[in-house]
C-alpha cells in the first residue's frame, strides 16, 4: 500500500476532495500546513510598513491506497489542484507496510 501526500492550495481542497470522491476514493485525512517553495511570499501591511510573509498557507492531504490506485489518485490531484501558477504544490508517495482498521481490527488492503 502507498501513502499519497499532496500539499495543495487551500482553496483547491473542495475540488480535489470532490474529484477523489467521484473516483471512489472516499477516505482521506487532511490538515493545514505552511510551506515555502518556489512561490514568493505575500505582503501584509501594518501601520504603513510592509511585512513579507515568507510562508504560505497550504493544505496537506493524506490518502492511503493500494499500490494499483496510486497513479489514478495522482492523476486526479494534479488535475484538480492545478492552476499553472507557482505554488500549485507537490505530491509525495511513500510505502505503507501495514494498515489496521481500529473498529474491526482488519488489516492490510481490506482495511483501506
Amino acid at each position, binding site marked *: 500500500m502507498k501513502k499519497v501526500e499532496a500539499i495543495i492550495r487551500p482553496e483547491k481542497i473542495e475540488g480535489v476532495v470532490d474529484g477523489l470522491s467521484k473516483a471512489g476514493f472516499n477516505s482521506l485525512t487532511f490538515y493545514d500546513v505552511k510551506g515555502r517553495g518556489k512561490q514568493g511570499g505575500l505582503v501584509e*501591511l501594518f*501601520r*504603513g510598513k510592509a*511585512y513579507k510573509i515568507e510562508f504560505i498557507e497550504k493544505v496537506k492531504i493524506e490518502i492511503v491506497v493500494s499500490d494499483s490506485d496510486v497513479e489514478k489518485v495522482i492523476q486526479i490531484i494534479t488535475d484538480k489542484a492545478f492552476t499553472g501558477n507557482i505554488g500549485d504544490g507537490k505530491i509525495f508517495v511513500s510505502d505503507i507496510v501495514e494498515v489496521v482498521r481500529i473498529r474491526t481490527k482488519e488489516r492490510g488492503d481490506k482495511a483501506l
Partner: protein
Amino acid sequence: MKQLKIFTFATFLIVAVGAIAFGQESAPSANSGDTAWLLTSATLVLLMTIPGLALFYGGMIRGKNVISTIYYSVAAAFTVSITWVIYQYSLIFSGDIGGIIGNLDKLFLRGVTIDSVSGTIPEYVFVVFQMVFGIITVALISGSIVERMNFGAWIIFILLWSLLVYTPLAHMVWGGGYIGGTLGALDFAGGLVVHTSSGITALILAIVLGERVRYGKDNILPHNIVYTFIGAALLWVGWFGFNAGSGLASDGLAGNAWLVTNTAAAAAGISWMLIDYIVSRKVSLIGAVTGVVAGLVAITPASGFVNIGGAIFIGFTVSILSYIFVSRVKKALKYDDSLDVFGVHGVGGMWGALMTGVFADPSVGGKAGLLYGNPNQLLVQAISILITILLVVVGTLISLFITSLITKLRVEPQEEVYGLDFSLHGEKAYEK
C-alpha cells in the same frame, strides 16, 4: 387692605420658599442632570482602559504576550485607583504650592462628604471622573514596552511616574497651577496631561528598554485584529465621556464636544485611509483605527474650544503627521515604540494642543485662537507643550532610575522568546 397684606405676604412666602427650593436644586447643591452625565462619563472613561485600551494593544502584539499586555493596563487601573484616593487627588486638586503642586489637606479624601460639591456636581463624582484620566494615562504608556518590560518594574515605575509626572502636571494644567492658571494654556480634556505626557514617556521607555528580541528580523504582526478593532471602537465610544464630560456639565458645550470629537475621529480615519490607499492601494483596518485614535487624541485639548471646521482640519492633518512618524521616523531612528504611543499620542497630543491655539472659537468656549484674532494663544500653547515635555522627561528619567535600582527593567531574553504570558503570568491565553 388687610386682605391685600395677607395676600401679598402669602405671595412672598411662596416666592421665598420657592427661591430657596429652587436655589437648593441649582446653586449650592449639585445638579442631578450634570451629575448623571458625569457619572456616565466616568464610567465611559474607565471603559476606555478596561477593556478598551487593553484590547486595542492586546490585539496588536503576538499571542504569547496578550495576557501580559492586558495586565499592564489592569495594573494601571489597580494602582491609580488606590493612590488616587490616598494622595493623588489631594496633591492635584487641593490648594496650590508654587503653581506646581497641591497640598495634602485631602489625603484619604479627608473632608470630602456626600454633600461636598464641586461646581454643579458632587465632589465625589469629580473625584472619580478625574481619577479615570489618571488611570488611562498610565495605561497608554504601556504600548511602547509591550512584550518585554518586567511586570514588577512596570508596577514600580507607574507608581513613581504617577506621583512625579502625572500629579504635578495635572495640577499645573487643571488644578489651578502654572500652565492652566497663570500661563492660561488651553487643554480641555488632556492633550497635554494625558497624551503628550504618555507619548513622551513611551518614547523614553522604548529607547531605554531597547528593541524586542528579533525585532526587525521576524515578522511581528498583530495576532488578532478583531480585538484591536473592538478596543479602538470602545476608545471611540468612551472618548465621548472623556471629552464631552470634561466641561463637567450636561449642556450645549458638552454637545459641541461630543460632535467635534466624532468629527475629528472620522476625518482622521478617512485621512489615514486615503494615505493607505495612495501608498499601497490597500486600505488596512489597523490604519483606519490608528487614524481614528490619532484624531481623538488631537481633538482632546481642543474639544471645548473649536467648532466643526477646526475639528475637520485637526482630524485630517493629524493622521498625516502620525503616519509619517509611525512609518518613517520610527524606522529611521530605529527605536521600538512597539505600538506607536509616541507617534499617535505624543504627536497627536502636541499637534492638538497647538491647533487649539489656532482654531479656538470664542463662540464655543469663550477663548479665541490665532484665527479669531488672538495669536498670543498659539504662543501660550507652544510654551505649555515645552514645559510639559520638560517635566515629563525629567520625571520619567527619575522614575526609571529609581525603578532600575529596585528590579530589572526587562525580562530575560529566554522569557521573552517563550512569551511573557507563560514566563511571568503562568498562563496561556488560548487553549485548543
